[in-house]
């Protein structure tokens, strides 16, 4: 058993082993160290802006949004003074091309394939896939859905969900840009588009010609993505968990998506797919 003197010695030794004790770049917090690409700046990658409810404004002049304000709050928690926004197509982001950003926040669901090229944090939302339609369109059951023309984002998990769970008669239309995907529903080229429920709610809040007609029973976790092998995952994950624990995420959801995340799950009818 160690004696008291030995313990003191080991603690002193620890001070030498862990340079964070003297204010260096080692372990400076119980949640790991965050080392930004650019000094004092959190560089965040997302899809081309705006993304209703999530990223408002332009890349050069972002004005708000759920994920944008999460990024600002995250920067504060990581003791960084500024947030820089970069954009790239969703398919590029999930292919691991983050363009030198510290992380990406763009409604990304962790999957095994994506995990090969990216590192994911603890999910900050669990959202059900939702069906976005023109106001007045009804989808009471999966058979009705199968007769409709679907629109999905390229390289999103919705492609797989639509094909495997809904199994529509017609091949879904694929879109690189989500604003074009929404327009396809509005102008009648597609009958229904699939988005995460919070994203769909933000779209509907923005445009009363659209409505959410149903959601699926499964949920998709949404997490921040970091470059593969990043040493910042622990620090970002811890900060996101703290944001969830202190209610920040829920209040941002209410502010930008019009409803708390937990409430929104209950207000939309369920579409049973039989899968």
């Amino acid at each position, binding site marked *: 058993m160690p004696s008291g003197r030995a313990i003191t010695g080991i603690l002193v030794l620890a001070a030498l082993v862990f340079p964070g004790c003297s204010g260096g770049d080692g372990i400076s917090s119980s*949640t790991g160290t965050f080392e930004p690409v650019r000094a004092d700046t959190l560089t965040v990658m997302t899809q081309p802006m705006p993304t209703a409810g999530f990223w408002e404004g332009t890349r050069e002049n972002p004005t708000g949004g759920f994920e944008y304000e999460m990024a600002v709050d995250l920067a504060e928690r990581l003791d960084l003074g500024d947030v820089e926004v970069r954009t790239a197509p969703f398919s590029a982001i999930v292919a691991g091309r983050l363009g030198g950003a510290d992380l990406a926040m763009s409604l990304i669901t962790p999957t095994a394939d994506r995990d090969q090229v990216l590192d994911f944090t603890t999910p900050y939302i669990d959202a059900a896939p939702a069906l976005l339609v023109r106001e007045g369109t009804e989808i009471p059951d999966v058979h009705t859905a199968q007769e409709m023309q679907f629109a999905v984002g390229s390289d999103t998990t919705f492609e797989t969900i639509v094909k495997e769970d809904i199994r529509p008669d017609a091949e879904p239309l694929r879109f690189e840009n989500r604003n074009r995907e929404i327009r396809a529903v509005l102008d009648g080229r597609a009958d229904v588009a699939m988005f995460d429920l919070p994203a769909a709610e933000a779209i509907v809040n923005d445009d009363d010609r659209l409505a959410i007609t149903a959601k699926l029973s499964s949920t998709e976790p949404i997490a921040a993505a970091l470059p593969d092998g990043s040493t910042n995952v622990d620090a970002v994950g811890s900060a996101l*968990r703290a944001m969830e624990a202190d209610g920040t995420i829920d209040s941002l959801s209410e502010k930008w998506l019009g409803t708390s995340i937990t409430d929104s799950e209950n207000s939309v009818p369920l579409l049973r797919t039989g899968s």
Partner: protein
Amino acid sequence: MSVAAISLQAPEGSAWEFLVLFLVVILGPPLVQRARIPGLIGLLIGGFLIGPNGLGLLPEGSKTIPELGQLGLLYLMFVAGVELDLKLLDRHRRSAISFGLLTFAFPMALGTAAGMLLGWELPAALLLGSLLASHTLILYPLVRGAGLANDPVVASVVGATVLTDTIALVILAIIAGTQSGTGGTSDVLLELVLGFIALGLVCFLVLPFLARRAFRALGTERTVRYVIAIASFLLAAVVAETFGIEGIVGAFFAGLAMNRLVPNEGPLMSRIDFFGGAVFIPVFLVSVGLLLDPSVMFQLETLGLAGLFIVACLGGKFIAAQSTRLILGANGAQAGIAFALSTPQAAATLAATTVGFEIGLFGESVVNAVLVLILVSVLVATLVAERDKDRVTLPPQARKELGERVLVAVADFASAPLGLRLAREVAAREAGVVDVVLMVDTATSGHERQADLDRISGMCRRLGIDTDPSVRTSVHDARTTVLAANSLESSLVLAVGSGIDDGWAEDLAVSSPAPVAIVRGSVDRPLGEVQVVALDPRVTAAGTVAAELVAAVSRDGDGDGGRPQLDSHHALGPGEVGVAGVSGWDELSEASPGAETGLVLIPDQLLPVEVPEPSVPEPHGTAAAMG
């Protein structure tokens, strides 16, 4: 239909996840125990293997096991509270408090210092200190098995656990509340204070009252009793969470509150242990294992943290254990046992670490380092306990409290309700257990035995006694009862009825390993409605037992029922029960209650030579007034 048309699907869904989970629960512990490693480590490793950082058998983002693990965490903390031996804390109050403060203070100070040394913020450093300061009595069964349960040092450590875990969880509640609360610090602290007041009221007033009423009303319906226990900790957890206090704190308090209602040796505790050991607690440990990440665990940073935690925790616990030499007069072996008992980190440590992780105060490195600490602390403590347990001189057998384990030996049904009611009340005072043995003669057929068993079981259910009665075929009731009392280690034997052998109860009184009270009378009313009167409370051992029995069952607890003491059982009126110590064979064998009255007689100073032979019963003389 051709074979090619068959399409097999990769296993997925809840059934698959539960299958994988239970395979880990089945295989994990025995595999690691072969290497003399505690079974819980096998569950942690198993969790890692099936998790995203291992073989990935569970789908990405699956919440089935983590959410079930949360329930397991609450269950674990409830069990930690309900299993603590509060009687030991009471008996060794001063030494338990002294040791509790020391074994909390040293690791707390060293852990907090280590956190500060690492440059952590104060809340994280304090949480680290508090989680290192708690401990789990993993090795208590080993020490108890070595006959050391009554060793004063062991008893003090067990009692100290109440203190260390309570303080650790209060610190956790304050830190988690201030870190995740949305208002100012003063608002959060006020909310916590109100929360602890509400939690205290719910746990220590409302919950025991409701549970006691429910147990009485619902008798011994096993599933219902068990579900009431589950509901109790869920209620406490909900109350705690309503005030921003972690649910585990509520669950632990509920365990403390239910402690006296759930005797450690009783059937309900067995059920709680069974389901906890089979499902809930393993699931929690497996869910923690999902967080294990070798790529993080074997980083220099994580191992460095683990090393520091180990030094702070084991060092602090060692200093505190050595202090027992000064404050408790312990020898080296006893100090070693104190170290072995107070060092293992499991329940409270895991709980606090999990909460710290969930609120973003701890990162994955810290979680993995704590898991290393748990492994090392359990291993080191096991080695020390194995080394020192045989070096401690066995303590003298402690006198059992009367109500700790009451054996009701029923020789006939007429007096059984009175005996069972008396046993229930006496046991309730000590949070004890009631065992019921029904004796039948050899001529009784199997069918009749089953009918008798159903009848006595029904009585127990009706009276709300949680026990599994047994039937014993007897040719000698006294001998049968002595054997039962020996094997059950009874603290009190209630000999109920006259049975096949006249004088069996008197025979029992001289050879029983525990005090004997002879119960006679057919009164079958709640004892609250029975006038219990002490008859001649003599200054003898029997008189002391009589006084304790009266205190247990009388409504005002002082034994005289507010009435003048009667000097003879003949003066008992309908609905009254007399309790007395008797020292003469004649008065013992001749004392017979009238209709609707009851007698509880405690034989005293009866020598074996005076025992009437069962086969040649003493001729009954005229009734003699007692006293």
